[in-house]
């Protein structure tokens, strides 16, 4: 289904787009398997309508909302963002959606709310990866942001890409996009939003805290213990031209977000 939207060139990169086929065929979405092509193969087993999002915690308007009541299609924007995966590859994707801040404000977050917590659907019947006996993930998939990060103008909730509804493997019907952080922060198929005082434990931090931190800001100066983060392969990558590029701090969005981390030791808060 087509999704009309206003383009936001001032919020977009003019870099060459990663082709649609690659964006929808090469995914990490462990709910459907750990292979890159598993999500494209199996995400169809998930039903995304009707869809509800439970909002709770420190806010004035908690409740369970139907997705369509949360979204006003007339206000959809298109933003072309870089996506840098922690595995050292990257893509350029035209997302369609709404700024996260606008949506969160409608729930009237309390002043005590310092963090926003997100959860992905947990339904082993529709998500075969959650049925795996050997997965070390404690489902559901959890993510979180500091409230000031969530209110940053770059933080985005996507409902589509390339002008169409999100394919399930890309996190339909609603996913986060935080382009200055590694891709795993951009949680997919969101069913829960909670405002809270204490910092939430996030999925990858729970699995391997020495490898994945809460912040997960793109940072070429801090290596992943198993590989360097200095460079990335911009996909599609060819055999003769691997398409290497230098990774940029905050994925090139430093101007918009570096003030959020002023005075913080980013080697410690990786």
């Amino acid at each position, binding site marked *: 289904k087509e999704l009309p939207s206003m383009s936001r060139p001032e919020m977009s990169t003019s870099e060459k787009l*990663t082709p649609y086929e*690659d964006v929808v065929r090469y995914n990490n979405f462990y709910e459907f398997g750990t292979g890159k092509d598993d999500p494209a193969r199996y995400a169809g087993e998930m039903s995304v309508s009707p869809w509800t999002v439970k909002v709770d915690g420190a806010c004035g308007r908690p409740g369970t909302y139907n997705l369509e009541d949360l979204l006003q299609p007339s206000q959809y924007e298109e933003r072309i963002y870089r996506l840098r995966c922690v595995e050292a590859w990257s893509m350029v994707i035209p997302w369609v959606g709404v700024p996260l801040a606008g949506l969160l404000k409608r729930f009237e977050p309390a002043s005590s709310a310092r963090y926003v917590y997100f959860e992905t659907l947990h339904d082993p019947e529709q998500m075969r*990866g959650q049925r795996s006996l050997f997965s*070390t*993930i404690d489902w559901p998939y959890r993510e979180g942001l500091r409230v000031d990060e969530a209110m940053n103008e770059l933080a985005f909730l996507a409902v589509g890409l390339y002008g169409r509804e999100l394919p399930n493997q890309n996190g339909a019907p609603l996913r986060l996009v935080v382009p200055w952080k590694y891709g795993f922060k951009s949680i997919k198929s969101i069913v829960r939003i909670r405002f809270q005082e204490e910092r939430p434990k996030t999925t990858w931090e729970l*699995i391997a805290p020495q490898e994945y931190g809460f912040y997960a800001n793109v940072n070429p100066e801090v290596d992943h213990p198993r590989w*360097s983060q200095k460079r990335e392969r911009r*996909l599609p990558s060819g055999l003769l031209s691997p398409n290497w590029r230098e990774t940029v701090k905050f994925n090139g969005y430093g101007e918009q977000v570096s003030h959020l981390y002023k005075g913080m030791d980013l080697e410690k808060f990786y």
Partner: protein
Amino acid sequence: MAGAVLNRPRAVRAFKVLVAFMAFLPLAILLSRLVGSGLGPDPGQQITESLGIAAFQLLLATLALTPLKRWTGWVGWLRVRRMLGLFTFFYAVLHLLAFLQFILGWGDVWATFTKRPYIIAGFLAFVLLIPLAVTSTNSMMRRLGRRWKTLHRSVYVIVLLAWVHFFWQARSDIGEMLAYGVVVLVLLVVRVRWSRLLRAGRRGAPSA
């Protein structure tokens, strides 16, 4: 009798050809996917991974031959052992080259091979394979005599290193790694049992 037919030189030779063909399959499949662009947007990653898995599987196959000979009594299994060992080395070389070319892009080589534990394990396994490949010829076997066998026992260390190299790359789902681990364990345990039985037999003691 079937056994007699299987022991004919022609049958053993046919078996060798069949095994060689199978050992080439991972490479052939990779090349065909490459030509058909079935490798996706990050082909280098796919190639590196597939070559590594192929090397590991061939190593396990090589280690399975002696037990198979014991259990079935057929000598054909041992006739393909050197070949499979060399195929293992062949895929390991390609895997290493692919890693350097596609994953590292020849940058940070020193840091990567000294700092990253999973790389160190894999590289050690590779380095230990070199003397085994070099001493795989008949003349080397003659020249080394008894020491040849001792040297080639390092394959047990290699298979453990290779498995650790694989296991340390697990992100969240360790099912596949555990399955391979069970195979490694079985291949090692049967050997420990044999050597115990052998020692007990030499001492003339009744086996317990």
